């Protein structure tokens, strides 16, 4: 059985990528280099991994505004525990991921048990996670970070290009999630729940358990993103995570996943994430000032989805 989902916007981000790369390649000297691409991948890895969790949630017709703040809380917890109690890094990391998973679980429980809209639930936990982060860290950046926590930020050489371990982890996680969603029963159930929750319940799938699982899994991904954020910046930053929710949702939508649930591909989110990273990098290299960058990003986002939409119309 070939996996023929109904057509979704997958072309959009790729077309945008190609156009953007062509323009940047022609107008700047340094854009087309493996080092620069490796850099872009490093810059997007935190949002990229948050985007996996966000994709899962959006596939179930939900949305998660708390993702970035929960990620920030996770990185504060893991660094501060290691710093204050001298716990070994792996334990501290697990505790951090535990906290983010707990937040995911709470989101999931509120969405399923009390049937609250995901938007409002995660808006609430967004605020709560932010406040806890500030209170627990005393609004201070945690600078004493064990080496084991920054290892993922370090690089290895592949054919002369330095590649960060975190980048590899991100790509791996995307592939695993892709396999899961595509080739396992529980993955297909995520689509089913998003596509027609009532039917899925009547068919006899424990929709609540699927949903709770999705939110908790997303929490795990946010925890991994916490670790990557620590690895990338070398500190636990209490002010991180404030804009990652919109960034991640943008990547998901740009990647062709429907906000109404049930349709989409997680690999599209990866493409969407990279598009945004390439834009930011290329425009900076071109010396475009940041206000114009915002303008161009705004226009390009619309153009990318438009081109995609029109191309699909033609194909029908």
């Amino acid at each position, binding site marked *: 059985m070939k996996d023929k989902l109904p057509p979704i916007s997958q072309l959009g981000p790729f077309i945008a990528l190609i156009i953007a790369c062509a323009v940047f390649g022609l107008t700047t000297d340094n854009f087309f280099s493996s080092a620069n691409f490796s850099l872009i991948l490093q810059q997007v890895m935190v949002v990229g991994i948050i985007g996996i969790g966000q994709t899962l949630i959006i596939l179930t017709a939900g949305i998660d505004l708390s993702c970035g703040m929960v990620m920030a809380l996770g990185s504060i917890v893991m660094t501060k525990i290691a710093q204050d109690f001298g716990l070994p890094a792996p334990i501290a990391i697990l505790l951090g991921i535990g906290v983010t998973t707990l937040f995911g679980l709470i989101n999931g429980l509120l969405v399923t048990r009390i049937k609250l809209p995901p938007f409002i639930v995660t808006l609430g936990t967004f605020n709560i996670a932010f406040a806890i982060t500030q209170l627990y860290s005393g609004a201070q950046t945690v600078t004493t970070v064990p080496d084991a926590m920054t290892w993922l930020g370090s690089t290895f050489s592949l054919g002369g290009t330095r590649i960060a371990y975190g980048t590899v982890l991100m790509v791996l996680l995307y592939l695993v999630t892709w396999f899961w969603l595509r080739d396992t029963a529980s993955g297909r159930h995520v689509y089913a729940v998003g596509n027609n929750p009532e039917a899925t319940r009547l068919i006899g799938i424990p929709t609540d358990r699927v949903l709770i699982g999705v939110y908790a899994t997303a929490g795990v991904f946010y925890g991994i993103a916490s670790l990557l954020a620590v690895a*990338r910046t*070398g500190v636990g930053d209490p002010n991180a995570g404030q804009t990652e929710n919109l960034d991640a949702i943008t990547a998901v939508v740009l990647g062709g996943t429907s906000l109404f649930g049930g349709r989409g591909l997680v690999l599209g989110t990866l493409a969407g994430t990279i598009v945004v990273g390439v834009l930011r990098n290329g425009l900076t290299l071109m010396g475009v000032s940041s206000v114009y960058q915002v303008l161009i990003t705004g226009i390009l986002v619309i153009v990318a989805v438009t081109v995609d939409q029109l191309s699909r119309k033609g194909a029908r």
Partner: protein
Amino acid sequence: AEPVIGLITKTDTNPFFVKMKEGAEAEAKKLGAKLLSGAGKIDGDNASQVALIENFVAAGAKTILITPADSKAIIPAIKKAQAAGVQVIALDSPTDPASAVDALFATNNYKAGELIGQYAKAALGGKKPVIATLDLFPGHPVGAQRHNGFLQGYGLKSLPATSNELAKPAEVVCMADSYGDRAKGQTGMENCLQKNPGINLVYTINEPAAAGAYNALKAAGKEKDVVIVSVDGGCDGVKDVAAGKIAATSQQYPLQMAAMGVAAGVEFAKTGKKVKSGYTDTGVTLIAAKPVAGVTSADTKVGLDKCWGNK
């Protein structure tokens, strides 16, 4: 080729940073350098600043000027850039530790706070202070430095410059976050007046917040009885001082910081000589329409002369 210099500000909406960028652009044009600029998405956005450092290095910048959003979190990225042979200069705010950058051209926010604190004490002339503070937002170091400096200058119980928490002595009856924004400052002041109509001294994080506070006081008919002090020294702010809306403000000099930074960058590109390391204070001047005894201040003419923004 012309030397490339990167400038990273905290945001690109705060007029303070917008002017800093314009100053840097003007200086770069004058000295024949190419300026790349970028900013965090919001104040406190460290991740974007890290990415910008990397992108500027990739773009061939030999000097990067940065107003760090997070004094500690930015350090690893700075170290990486320095390892690639790039000179990094902090503007406006120091890194922690300050020695992490090659040089710092900055203003002392704690000091700026102290000056208006001292002025306020004298202006109140022995009256018991009933204070409202309109701060930035939770967790921001500049917000804490100005706030704590102000209380220190007034001689109230305060916290040291290194603290990121806001001191709250008994004299401070109301604290509200303004996000440095006029509308939110106005809302905060309105609420504070409800809490304690007897407020006679208002500290604000910046002049837009002060303008909002003035609106609120005016609506309550109290604008004559309350002293507003602020920090920044933008032209609109100085005009408000001249108009008597704000009693005093600590003026800072973003254009100067930028110009010095760009000059150092060009110098480094041409000669390979790094700037003199350490802290260069670009200075703070207390601007007040009515000088008070015991506190040195400049009048608003001086302030308007050196202010940034639309004169």
